[in-house]
């Protein structure tokens, strides 16, 4: 009796492992490109000992984007090749992350349209639905697969999403500092800042502090205030 029970338990655990492996391989393949980019970028950050700030720079990008545009209008030379590259990188990773989030809008579709064709076990069982019992077993197994599929997909989604956001946060951090590094070198921008009443050699923190005084009644106020918090 005990032996029989042990054999069954062993078989169940071996089936569970096969299911987990099959799903894991699928999820890995599904996100291979995104994971490759995220890991490559993180490796670049790590090997060069660059900063991934704990502060959330993600929502600052709109402010920095419009700041850079207004500076370019005054002095187009401030947009150095490095700033351009970094800008394109940020845009690309933002797009990747956005599309990546969309992939998850319909996990059931991915499961039904892609995974069911991918899974050797489920495909085999589907071909051999001979009676009610095999049909019921197939349904039960499909449900078990789906639960595990959702868990693994969600875990991977969070992991990859976090990697992409960390990379983005780091890039926006450097983008911010590069803009001001170039702006503080520009005579034309110095003059512009002087005219609007900001002392030369500033950074986003000082600039935002100044802008906030002027925008108390503007609809931008809350956003700019939120941006200023990042700089403490």
């Amino acid at each position, binding site marked *: 009796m005990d032996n029989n029970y042990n054999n069954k338990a062993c078989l169940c655990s071996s089936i569970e492992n096969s299911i987990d492996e099959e799903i894991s391989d699928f999820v890995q393949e599904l996100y291979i490109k995104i994971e490759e980019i995220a890991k490559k970028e993180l490796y670049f950050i790590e090997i060069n000992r*660059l900063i991934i700030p704990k502060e959330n720079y993600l929502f600052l990008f709109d402010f920095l984007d419009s700041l850079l545009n207004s500076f370019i209008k005054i002095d187009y030379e401030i947009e150095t090749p490095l700033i351009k590259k970094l800008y394109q990188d940020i845009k690309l990773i933002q797009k990747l992350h956005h599309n990546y989030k969309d992939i998850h809008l319909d996990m059931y579709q991915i499961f039904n349209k892609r995974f069911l064709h991918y899974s050797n076990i489920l495909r085999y069982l589907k071909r051999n639905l001979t009676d009610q019992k095999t049909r019921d077993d197939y349904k039960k197994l499909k449900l078990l697969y789906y639960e595990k599929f959702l868990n693994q997909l969600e875990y991977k989604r969070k992991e990859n999403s976090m990697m992409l956001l960390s990379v983005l946060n780091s890039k926006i951090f450097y983008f911010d500092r590069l803009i001001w590094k170039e702006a503080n070198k520009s005579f034309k921008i110095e003059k512009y800042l002087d005219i609007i009443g900001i002392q030369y050699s500033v950074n986003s923190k000082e600039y935002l502090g100044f802008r906030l005084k002027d925008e108390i009644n503007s609809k931008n106020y809350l956003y700019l205030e939120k941006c200023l*918090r990042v700089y*403490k």
Partner: protein
Amino acid sequence: MNSVTPYTKEEIREFLKITDDAYQDEQSISLRKLMTVKDRIDIFKGIEAEELKAIIYDLKFIKYNFGDTIIKQNEISSEIFFIITGVCKVIHNGKEVGVLKSKDIFGEAGAIFEIKRNATVRCASNDVTLLSFCIDNNNMEFCADSLAILYKNLAFQINHKLQELNYHYSIKGHI
């Protein structure tokens, strides 16, 4: 799918220069001061220094004198205060209802629940030194765990105050 842009050695050097500058500048005097007192403040227990810097803002060390009003009842503000030195009185509807001393915090209910101040707090001694700060809830992406610890510590403080009140009223009831 495009890959992100590779960077030249010169560009990487530029990033490194920014990294060095970033480590040297920015950290305000208040933040540096906070790191020296961080371990004495219960509500910051269990939070790493880097993360603590990222989840609070408007950090200030303020000195008050006897009779100064720190917060007023019914005002709306999200500042939390920690008493480093000195004694303060808590006044509700014109009546003194409690005393706060070194290591006590106040203002946390207003900050968490975004409600009006429950009471006025006034200095009851000279040279009251306070640490005030606000919580930055916009940093869920990178510091969710630390924010959770901070809120847990604040909830613990509120619970502690409620227990003290219960004790106070139960004694009064017996008398």
